[in-house]
């Protein structure tokens, strides 16, 4: 897993990557500008947002938030059988908007390969 994740984190335009289950970070490449506590808060906020939409019967697959200085792109792994909300997330910190498309393609391929194994 780590090798594939490393490749995602090294994609052009990616400033940071967090692999997290709910708010629990399993793997991270954190930029110096983001503290450990704030990284945890970010992953918590992301998983809460997805859970909130899942409760409203609108499960999200992707989300994108563009701020003035960076963007947050989140991809959720499809929920396990019997679950309504996804529990595994890839949360990327992106330098700019054009990076999103390539990152989404590679992240989707990663999820596909994970589910095939």
């Amino acid at each position, binding site marked *: 897993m780590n090798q594939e994740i490393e490749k995602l984190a090294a994609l052009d335009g990616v400033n940071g990557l967090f692999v997290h289950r709910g708010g629990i970070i399993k793997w991270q490449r954190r930029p110096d500008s*983001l503290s450990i506590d*704030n*990284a945890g*808060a*970010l992953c*918590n*906020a*992301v998983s*809460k*947002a997805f859970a*909130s*939409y899942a*409760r*409203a*019967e*609108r*499960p*999200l*697959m*992707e*989300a*994108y*938030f*563009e*701020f*003035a*200085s*960076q*963007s*947050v*792109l989140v991809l959720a792994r499809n929920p396990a059988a019997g679950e309504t909300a996804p529990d595994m997330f890839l949360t990327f910190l992106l330098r700019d*908007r*054009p990076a*999103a*498309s*390539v990152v*989404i*393609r590679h992240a989707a391929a990663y999820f596909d390969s994970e589910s095939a194994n």
Partner: protein
Amino acid sequence: MNFSGTIDETSGMTMTRLIERIVHTDTPGELRLHDEASGRRATVAIRRGMVEDVSFGELTGDPALTAISQVMPWTFEFVGDEAGAVPSHPSMVSRRPKARAVVRPAAKPDAISELPLEFDAPAAAPVEVPVSTEEEPPCLTEAHRAWIAAAGTRYCIPFGAAGNEFAGEVHEDDHAYFRSDYDFLLATAGGIARSLGCDAPQVIAIAEAERATAYCTIPGGFLGMIGGAGTGVSHVIDFPGSRTI
């Protein structure tokens, strides 16, 4: 037919599903909701086979329905009308927009095409504008309207709202839905913004199985883009350079 109960994390039921079931049973009446933790109350009137009226605090209609669906737990009581049942429309409870692009994209581009750096308003000759002391209500600019008119693709529909104005090829019944969706997404983004020490996001996008939706904040409202099944975030975030809007 009267009944009551509680909807919480453990009940395996959501408010949306409960309302749908009441609609499907052709039972007109009023669903009275109570959030015991905060004391808030809401009502959902279901008559003529549809959600006829919703109120939750100061919210009514679609925004109220969206807000209700985000709260848990609720205790509820359904008080049926005496007038009797009428045929229902199973699609009614859906808060989903009616107008949407439905074609699955043939192929995803490797990268988003280069985004315009400037969002130029059409050149206009200088004219004398009468000065008014009253503040003008926000509205879409000519540049916004031009983007809405030009940005559509086979898969995505652009739209926009500012103040009371709404533009774009989406059903007018969905205007409240988009406003509510935008407000909710902005609120949702608050926690993410705080963790990063950022202000509110300029562009927000989400992708679900049936559609992807994106919003770009403009003064007094937003520009939006919605794509049908098979579209993702990357298909709907091609807004003009947001810093210049």
